[in-house]
Each structure stands twice: as structure tokens, then as C-alpha cells.
């Protein structure tokens, strides 16, 4: 406000003023009806003039005029004191009258600012009255504010925002099925590009009343009632957020003690909820809350950021603490996926958190979220290492019957197959680790023309996992008494590993060279099996010069019988063994068949053994060989009767 002292006898200024005044007078003569705004402007001018001209308003007319206007405003404000209905419900006319009255009183108070109160009893008295009116009006505004905030709050239904990750359906045990990787990756790409914050803004307050709230904010802050405004605004918005958190999203608060003692199944579903809630609350709700604060308190930056941080703080801390509790807990391997999910969700939201808590007031919470990300990464790495430990530690004293696929093999392969979905994150985590720790994983493979993925940190870790698995399988295979079954077991399991890798994204991480090598490995076990089982059996049919002639003569029939006995023994045992992969089973049967049948036919043909000495014809034998590795108990009598 320009005080009266500032007016200097400036001729040029006077001339301008006189010209403007003439202009105004001329215009006033021309129009009949003044708009409210114009009338108010002129009234302000009038007051200003009266204060300036009278030096102080102790002389008659102007003081009476000011008092009249004060009285008018007072009546307008006090009129509502006894009224139970809300001004903003009554209509825009009443609202603007009420706000107009406040504005009027405020203008009067401001215009007194240059007047020494102590010198002027009249002014002092008017000021007291004006302040009193402001107090009553502010109390009223606060009530109106709360009323509007409570009655016009809006919640968006979380269903409309599709954040549900397909990964939510992964079951972390050995029976889990393959995931639809494409859709996961597609959704991930979308969310990764989500720097467009405006996309997720929703209305938390009916947009119609936002200008009303802004008007109240302006009036209260102009009257230095910003503390009262903040208390009411923060309180109402905190309650709305709490209601959203607990009632709409049906989330719960947990103590750290609770989380650490939680059963795994409960914890994993709470983690999924957290992931989901983080996105909805931070990306949508709080971003919208910030926008709302900006709309209502735009121009009052300090108040605005203070309000937002106060509203959101408790919720931020609650989300943060759940994360802390999970990161503190044990790191069993099955937790890895949850930890990685949390890591990715937080990593993805970190920019948004930074921008929401950009100001000083929330900076320590912002830093804590960064710290939490680091902790989650650390826990994820630990869980990964736990997997390796768990594989090594998996020790059963009994061999797996029938030599089939060990549950550990299935578990590990399904586990690492799922890991490839998280390849970017894992590579990042392992790279961090390599720079943090001094010992990095170095591999001896030196092939040149291989895709770089094959040597990314994740690939190295994956290969070390499968080699740990191979070691464990070799240890387990030693539990078998028969050498043959040992080879069948290893052949089965390595074949399974290779198939899993060939048939999935794991292929590029392991590389063709690795696959070739391991195909060789299981084929080697197939060969070893044949040697272990059939060498001794076929030795009865072999015509080699090592035996003396007399023995040979008497024993052709005998050797045929012994061969039959040996074959029957093998049959009884090996039909119970199991090769689950049909192709592998077929291949092994064919090569076995070729070997055995050929030797048998040759032996019978060359030695002309009559049919009565032959228990099984070549065809019989061929058929019997088809029963091998079916994993079912068979007796020979049945098969012979055909």
C-alpha cells in the first residue's frame, strides 16, 4: 500500500493523475450501471483518497465513510455467525459477498498500515473492530474449508488403473508353470517409459470446488491465517489419504515384528500388495495430491510444499517401513523374485519419489527410499547366493527311485528360467556387486564369436548355478548301487537341463557352446549306460578267440541260456527305470536295440541254435526292449505269453 508519505509534489505525476481522473469522470458520466468489480475498485480509490487527503482520518466525513463500510462488512460476516447452513452451499452470490466483505476489511486494515496507531485513537478502535471481523470470518472460512474438503473428496477406483503385474501369478515352488514372458515384458516396457507423470493424475477433489478452495486459501493466507489453513487442510487431506489406504485399497499397517514373523505365504501376498500399492499411491494418488496442492496453493510455494509433505509423510514412512522389514528378513531363495519385484517397482518409482519430495521438507524420506533400493538389491543378491548354497546343501540319503528327474533339477531350472525375466535388474545388481566386492566371477571360456549376453554377469551366475546343480547331481548319483542307473539318472537330469535351456530364453545366456558341450555330456552318459549294462550281457554272445574250442562247442546252448537269464535280469530291473522324455527314451532304445538285436541275431544265425533252445526269438527280444524305461513293474511271464 502506498502510504501518504510517498506522495511527493511531483508536477508531472500530478498531471498524469489529473488526466486519468478526468478520464474516469468522463466515463462515469457515460455509463449508468457499474459492475461489482468496478464499483469496488472505485470504492478502494475513495478510501485511499480519504486517507491521503485527510492525512489521518480524524476529520469528520471520511472517518464516517470508513466506519460505514466497516459496519457493512461486519454485518455481512456476522450475519453468518448464527446461520447453520454453509455459505458455499448457498450459492455463488453469497460466497462472493462474504469474500468481498473479507476483502474489504482486509483493504481497510492494509490502508491503516501507514497510520500510527498510538497517535490516533479512532484508527485504533477501527483496527480492533476490523481484526475482530477477520477473526470471525477466518473461523468461518476454516469450517467451510473442512466442509468442502470432506464433502467433495473423490477417490479413484484402483481397478481402473491397470498396474496388476502378470508376475503376481508366479508360484514359487517346483511345480510352477512357465510364464507368459511377452506380456510381462510388454507391461514392463510401458511402465519404464513412465516419466510422463501427467498421465496418471486423477481428481481427488471435485474439480468444480477447486476454485472455491483456492479462494479460501487466498483469503486465509492474505489475512495471515496460513497456520490455521494448513492445520485444517493437512488434517482433512491426511484423513482422506488414510481412508484411501485402509478402506479403499484395504491395506494394512504392519509392525516390523509382524513382518519378520509372517508366514511365507502371507508375506509374499503382502509383498505383492505393497508393489501394487506403491504404484497406485505414489504414481497416482500422491502425484495427484501434489497437483491438488499446487492448484489450491499455487503461488505460495513454501506453504504448498509443506502441506504436501505433511499430508504424505506418514504414508511414505509406512510404505518405507514395510520395505525395510522385508529387506531385513531372511533371504531364502524363494524370496528372490519378491525382492526383485520390489526392487524393480521401487527403482521405477524413484524418479517420481524424487520429484514429489523435491523440497527440503521431505528430503530425508527421499534419501531413505534410495537407501531402501540399495538394501533390496543387497537382499536380492544374498537370496541369489542362498540358492547356490541351498543347491550345495541339498543332501538326501536315499537315491531317487527309478533314476528320473530330481525335484531339485526341476526346481532350479524353473527358478532360473524365471530369473531371465529380471535380466536387466540382475545384471545391474551383479555389476554393482562386482564393483563393490573385489572378487568378481571370472570364467574360463574364451570363445570369440559369441553374443555378449553369454558373458553378461547374469549369464555367468546362471552357469555357476547349473554347475553347482551338476555337482550336486553327481553326488546324488553316487547313491545308486548300479552303475547303469547312475548313468540313466545323470543322463535324464542333464538332458532335462539342456532341454529347459534350449526351449527358453536361457538359451542366449548359456550359449550354443555350452549347450553342445552338455548334449555331449548326456550322450556320454547314454553310452556309458550301454557299456555298463550290456557289455557283460552281450559277452555271452561274443565269438572271440579267447576261449578254447571244446568249451565253445558245449556252451553255445549254455551261453544262449545264460544270455537269456542275464537279459531277463536286466529286463526285470530296467523296465522299472524311468526316462521321462519320450524322444530320449526312443533314442536310447533304438541304439540299445541295434546293438543287442544285432549281436543276438548274429549269434543265433552263426551257431545254428535250434528253436527249442531259444527262449526268445529276435522279434520277442525286440518287443521286450520296448518295455524298458517305462517306469512300471513288469514280469516276463506276461510278455512271453504273447
Amino acid at each position, binding site marked *: 500500500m502506498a502510504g501518504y508519505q510517498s506522495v511527493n509534489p511531483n508536477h508531472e505525476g500530478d498531471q498524469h493523475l489529473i488526466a486519468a481522473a478526468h478520464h474516469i469522470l468522463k466515463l462515469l458520466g457515460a455509463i449508468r450501471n457499474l459492475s461489482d468489480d468496478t464499483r469496488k475498485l472505485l470504492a478502494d480509490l475513495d478510501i485511499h483518497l480519504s486517507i491521503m487527503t485527510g492525512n489521518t482520518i480524524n476529520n469528520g466525513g471520511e472517518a464516517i465513510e470508513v466506519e460505514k463500510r466497516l459496519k457493512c462488512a461486519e454485518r455481512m460476516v456476522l450475519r453468518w455467525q448464527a446461520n447453520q447452513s454453509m455459505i458455499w452451499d448457498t450459492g455463488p452470490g453469497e460466497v462472493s459477498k462474504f469474500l468481498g466483505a473479507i476483502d474489504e476489511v482486509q483493504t481497510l486494515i492494509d490502508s491503516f498500515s501507514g497510520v500510527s*496507531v498510538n497517535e490516533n485513537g479512532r484508527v485504533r478502535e477501527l483496527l*480492533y473492530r476490523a481484526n475482530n471481523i477477520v477473526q*470471525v470470518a477466518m473461523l468461518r472460512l476454516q469450517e467451510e474449508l473442512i466442509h468442502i474438503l*470432506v*464433502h467433495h473428496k473423490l477417490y479413484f477406483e484402483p481397478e481402473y488403473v491397470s498396474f496388476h503385474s502378470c508376475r503376481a501369478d508366479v508360484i514359487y515352488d517346483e511345480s510352477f508353470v512357465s510364464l507368459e514372458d511377452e506380456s510381462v515384458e510388454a507391461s514392463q516396457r510401458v511402465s519404464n517409459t513412465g516419466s510422463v507423470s501427467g498421465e496418471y493424475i486423477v481428481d481427488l477433489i471435485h474439480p468444480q470446488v477447486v476454485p472455491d478452495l483456492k479462494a479460501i486459501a487466498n483469503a486465509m493466507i492474505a489475512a495471515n491465517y496460513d497456520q490455521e489453513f494448513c492445520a*485444517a487442510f493437512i488434517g482433512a487431506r491426511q*484423513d482422506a489419504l488414510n*481412508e484411501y489406504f485402509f478402506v479403499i485399497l484395504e491395506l494394512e499397517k504392519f509392525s*516390523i*515384528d509382524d513382518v519378520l514373523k509372517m508366514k511365507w505365504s502371507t508375506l509374499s501376498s503382502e509383498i505383492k500388495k505393497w508393489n501394487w500399492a506403491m504404484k497406485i499411491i505414489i504414481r497416482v494418488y500422491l502425484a495427484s495430491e501434489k497437483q491438488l496442492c499446487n492448484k489450491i496453493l499455487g503461488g505460495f510455494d513454501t506453504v504448498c510444499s509443506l502441506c504436501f509433505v505433511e499430508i504424505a509423510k506418514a504414508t511414505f514412512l509406512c510404505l518405507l517401513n514395510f520395505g525395510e522389514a522385508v529387506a531385513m528378513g531372511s533371504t531364502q531363495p524363494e524370496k528372490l523374485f519378491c525382492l526383485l519385484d520390489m526392487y524393480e517397482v521401487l527403482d521405477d518409482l524413484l524418479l517420481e519419489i524424487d520429484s514429489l519430495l523435491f523440497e527440503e521438507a521431505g528430503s530425508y524420506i527421499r534419501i531413505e527410499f534410495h537407501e531402501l533400493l540399495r538394501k533390496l538389491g543387497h537382499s536380492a543378491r544374498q537370496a541369489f547366493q542362498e540358492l547356490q548354497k541351498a543347491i550345495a546343501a541339498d543332501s538326501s540319503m536315499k537315491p531317487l527311485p527309478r533314476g528320473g528327474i530330481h525335484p531339485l533339477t526341476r526346481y532350479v531350472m524353473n527358478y532360473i528360467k524365471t530369473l531371465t525375466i529380471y535380466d536387466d535388474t540382475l545384471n545391474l545388481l551383479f555389476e554393482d556387486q562386482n564393483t563393490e566386492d573385489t572378487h568378481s566371477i571370472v570364467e574360463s571360456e574364451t570363445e570369440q564369436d559369441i553374443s555378449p549376453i553369454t558373458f553378461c554377469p547374469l549369464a555367468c551366475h546362471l552357469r555357476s548355478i547349473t554347475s553347482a546343480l551338476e555337482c550336486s547331481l553327481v553326488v546324488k548319483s553316487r547313491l545308486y548301487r548300479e552303475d547303469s542307473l547312475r548313468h540313466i539318472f545323470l543322463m535324464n537330469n542333464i538332458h532335462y537341463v539342456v532341454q529347459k535351456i534350449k526351449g527358453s530364453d536361457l538359451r542366449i545366456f548359456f550359449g550354443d557352446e555350452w549347450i553342445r558341450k552338455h548334449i555331449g555330456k548326456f550322450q556320454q552318459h547314454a553310452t556309458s549306460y550301454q557299456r555298463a549294462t550290456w557289455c557283460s550281457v552281450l559277452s555271452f554272445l561274443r565269438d572271440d578267440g579267447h576261449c578254447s574250442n571244446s568249451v565253445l562247442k558245449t556252451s553255445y546252448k549254455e551261453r544262449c541260456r545264460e544270455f537269456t537269464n542275464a537279459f531277463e535280469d536286466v529286463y526285470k530291473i530296467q523296465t522299472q527305470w524311468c526316462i521321462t522324455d519320450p524322444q530320449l527314451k526312443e533314442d536310447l532304445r533304438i541304439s540299445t536295440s541295434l546293438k543287442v538285436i544285432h549281436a543276438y541275431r548274429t549269434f543265433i544265425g552263426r551257431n545254428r541254435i535250434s528253436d527249442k533252445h531259444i527262449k526268445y526269438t529276435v522279434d520277442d527280444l525286440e518287443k521286450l526292449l520296448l518295455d524298458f524305461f517305462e517306469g512300471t513293474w513288469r514280469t516276463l511271464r506276461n510278455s512271453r505269453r504273447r
Partner: protein
Amino acid sequence: MPATDYQGSFLGRISIRRNQVMSMEGNHEQELEDLELFQKHVADRFAELAPPSPSQPSDDIPSDPILSIAWIRKLLDVFLCCDAEFKAILIMGRDPSQISKPPLDRLIPEMLDRDVKALDICNAITNGIEAVRHYQKLAEIAVSALEQRPFGDGQVKRARKALTSLITAMACEDKDGANYTRTWSFGRRGAAAAGNNKSTGQLRSLSWSVSKNWSAAKQIHAMSANLVAPRGTEASGLALPVYIMSTILLFVMWTMVATIPCQERSGLATHFPVPKQLVWAQSIIGLHEKIAEEWKKKEKKGSAGLLEEMQKLDKLGQSLIEFTDSFQFPAEDERAEEVSAHLAELGETCRRMEEGLVPLQVQIREVFHRIVRSRAEFLDVLDLNGKSSALAM
């Protein structure tokens, strides 16, 4: 002597021991000496927190009053110091297998369990400080209204409303013992609006600071339940520092619960399960007795929290309300003079709160993270011994 003097020699010892890592069994004497020093440091540090006795000549530097924000911050500093020394004694340069031997194999998991409970208390207190900040803001409104000149009816009414809200809020918090009840919904219309679509009880249940049914008093009770002073040969071994540190943790958490509003304080134990003859515990026991007495008074009187600044707000708030009740326009000058002293004190209290509360909150977070880290370090050591499976909850 200031604590930092010990710090130097103490760290020196650690580095000496680092060089002796291999000869673990041989330095039993060294260990006894470390334990001796630890006890002395604990005793000294807590002695510094004790209020100066009237018989002693007062120092030049005025000490922070007990249970003030500044005092609590010192208490937390002491905690952090003791924790650092404790870990140095128990973990640094020590063969991990010693930690998994009885009785530590039982005592350490118990301690880690206490740690978890302390973390939840830290969170509840962090939330409680929000309530205290809310009180501060209400008091600030009163101060700024009453300091305004010219001073008239409007300002008095404004101040009165803020003060009434303040006193009600502090009393409500005390009665509910739960999270602070908000007092933003002033006035009849506002209250009606807030209660419109849900009962206030439901609203309150929405603002649990920790979790439903969580009780600070119960957590404190659980923390002290299995805290037993080591006896016989254990009393001179590593069981002692574990006991000392657990006692400190319990005392610090108990003090914060008694001082700062937090969820469910009713039934907070005033018994401190520490034998009176322990030399290192003398100052802690003294402080505990003093605070427990205050707490009992508080329970009887139903006054606000024990935090010194809150008690000030309560006292000054009440007296200023009396003033505003009897206020007549125009103000009698002498009455206004009388009030200005109270007002200045309230203003000073608000200033101290403004300066101290947020740093206190940050410091509690620091304590939180320290406890998390210590717990993780112990779990790592135990993991090395292959005992993690029993512990990892």
C-alpha cells in the same frame, strides 16, 4: 572428563586387538580390561545425563533439562556411542564361533528379538513426534496472535481457540494412548462435517501408527521380560556386555515411550529389572527412578506427555487461556504486561521445538538404521556359524 577422551584409547585397543586376531584364546586379560572400560564408559556417559544435584556447584554451562528435546537427543547420542563400543567388543576381531557358544547362543537371539521391538518403538515415536509438532503449531498460532499489535479482541479469540485446541489435543492423546487425535476439525460445523460419513472412532483406528493392537507398553514389557543379569562366571564374560547393551536399549526405548506420545502407553511398566548393586547401572537406575516418578504423577494427574516442552505448553497454555477468558477490551496494560512473560516463554518453547523436533526425528531414524545394521552384523556372524536357520525368522 568428556567421553571423547576414552574414545581414543578405546579405539587404540581395538587396533591392537586386530593384530592379535589369531591368538584369540590368549588374550583373556585384554578382554577383561575391555569389559571394564566398557562399563566405565557406560557409567560416565549416563552420569553426564543426570540432572545436576543441588548440592554440587553448578557448572558454567547450563545443562539441558531432563526430558527436554535436547536431553533426549543427548540420550540417543549416548546410545549410539555405547552401541558402537559394544559391537567393537563383541564382533570386531573376534572368532565368530565364540558368539555361538553358550550362553551367547541364547542371549544374542534374545537381544536381536529386542532389537526388532525397539525398531517398532522408534517408528511409533517418529509418528508421535508428528503429534508434538502439531501441538507446536497450535502454540505458535497463539503466540503470533498474542504478539500482534495493536492487541484486541480478534487476536485474543484467535489465540484462545488455538490454545483450547492445544490443551484438548494433548489431553485426548493422553486419554486415548493411541495415535494422536487430530484437532483440525474445529467448531461445530467442521466437526459435523468430519463425522459425516464415518464415526470418529473408525477414523482414529485408521491412523494407527504401527499396526492394529500394537502397544508400546507391551513391547517394553516384552523387551524386559527375559532380561536377566548374568550371574557367576557369566558375569565376567561376554554375557555382560550383551546384558549392558540390552539394558541401555530398554532404558532408551522406555524413556522415549514415557516422554513422547505414542500408540498405547497405558500400563507402561515403571519397574526396572536391573539389580541395584551394579556399578555401571547406577546412573541409569537413578534416571529411571526419576522418570518413573514423573510418569506416575502424569498417570495420576492425567497431564500431557513427559516431554519437558510439552509440559511447558500445557502449563503456559492453561495460564494463557485463563488470561484470554478474563480479557476485556480495551486491554488493561498491567494485565498485558503480566502475560507477556508467559508469552515470551511459550514463544521460546516453540522455538526450541522448531529447532529440535525435526532433527530429533532424523536422529531416531538414525538409531533405527543403526539397530538394523547391528542386527544384520550379528546375523552375519551367526550365519557364518551355520546357525542362521534357527534365527532367520
